[in-house]
């Protein structure tokens, strides 16, 4: 199980995948907006998206788990 975590505090700008999607390692799962910058958050490993824990507009803190991917 891979946890896709926020690299920094910010708000969720876009959620790019849905639960059940097959994703590749390095694929962008969520884009955060922070400090007026778009911050792409990628999954480290490939697999199936089993959960998405955030919605567009949510505030997240550094290290918050945004989604989980199962190999």
């Amino acid at each position: 199980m891979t946890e896709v975590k926020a690299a920094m505090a910010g708000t969720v700008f876009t959620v790019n995948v849905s639960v059940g999607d097959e994703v590749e390692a390095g694929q962008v799962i969520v884009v955060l907006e922070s400090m007026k910058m778009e911050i792409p958050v990628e999954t480290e490993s490939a697999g199936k998206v089993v959960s998405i824990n955030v919605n567009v507009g949510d505030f997240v803190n550094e290290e918050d788990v945004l989604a989980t991917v199962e190999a």
Partner: protein
Amino acid sequence: MTKTTEGPAYNEKLQEKLQTIFQGGHLKYHEKQKEQNKLFVRDRLELLFDDGEYMEDGRFANCEAADLPADGVVTAMGKVNGQTVCVMANDSTVKAGSWGSRTVEKIIRIQEIAEKNRVPMLYLVDSAGARITDQLDMFPNRRGAGRIFHNQVRLSGFIPQICILFGPSAAGGAYIPAFCDIVIMVDKNASMYLGSPRMAEKVIGEKVTLEEMGGARMHCTVSGCGDVLAADEQEAIAEARRYLAYFPANYTMDPPIREKVEAKAGRTLEEIIPENQNAPFDMYEAIDAIIDEGSFFDIKKRFAPEIITGLARIEGQPVGIIANQPKVKGGVLFVDSADKAAKFINLCDAFSIPLVFLADVPGFMIGTKVERDGIIRHGAKLIMAMSSATVPKISVIVRKAYGAGLYAMAGPAFEPDVCIALPTAQIAVMGPEAAVNAVYSNKIEAIEDPKERMAFVQEKHKEYKAEIDIYKMASEMIIDEIIAPSDLRMVLAERFRYYSTKNIPLPPKKHPVYPV
């Protein structure tokens, strides 16, 4: 290493003694080393030095004791890239590379030799730490282990000091890497820690593996105590040789200039840098377009990757590059990125390596977490290091440079020799969206009609953008120059050649009060 000695019996005795010394520890420890993919200390030295040749001191240290050849450390002078260097190298086949009184004395002496001859000092570390049975002879005294660290501090900035970590660097010994300019760690084998996992469990009840707590990968990514993660010992030694090629023998000399090499063929800076200030791009690709191909030596690549710090050559001239990485965390400056850049600037300035700042920075991170981490204090470290660097320094505003980000990246007030803007540059206290919000938020909220509100905001964005227009900045002589991105390499090379005689005296004082 040694010459065959022939003749009388006393030469035979000498030869025997030397044989024992060169063999190092017991065979079983050699086998254990091999199992761990480790090389014997003398094989490491042969790889390190030009033609594998070196001149050794203190070979007979503790030769009267059983099983302590060279007292577990080899100290020597030799050449790396034609440049003389001094080395201490632990022999982990001898009591796990632990330190006795003669081990310590040998290390202190080779440091003194490095100081007298003004040549770089390398520490090849693979040591379990102090021999507790010998503590009175090697721990608290004037020429005890503490003196090694005292000497390191004394030599810091005087000569380059490099640490290659092949195995453990435990307890007090962990301060050898801490005081070096750079620490190269071998993945899986190298480790640094003050207290071992066993000690952590006994004293504070924590259960943790060595790799998690003090492994090479952890130190190169999380703690920042390691600079380069090498896959194996050969790579670690090769990296040390490559690193040294950027440095003079000591602070009085200039770094060596090499033959010019063309930049790597690839996209132009115009193609690499997006005009949309908020869109990420890979700054490494931009660096490749500026520097001589293959000349980049990345320092702390895995640690705080939102800022890139590395040595490179531009038309053969060594430079230190400090560049924001918009691809990671938007290139925002954090506590660790400030720390990383501050140390790198200090390193380059100490050894006369000119600095290039490539700015694309939304500013320092804000919010509770970073304030509690002391981002102001850490940011101050970076600004002090940058500000007090007297080497030629060029500030390039690649895209945005907002707030204290402009200051950290050697903005105009910090006496860069020149502040160059690319046409994509944008300098401001904050970006247009944030600024308009900050100034007009009450007014914006008061407008009820959404269309009208949007029109008002857009109008204010336009006004703000005109205010911070890069040609206006140039007209006001805030920035010194605007150039086409694809000319940057040529312009940097030319300017660094002109600035090579730069010499600015600082007001007399002992030293600044460091904001550490």
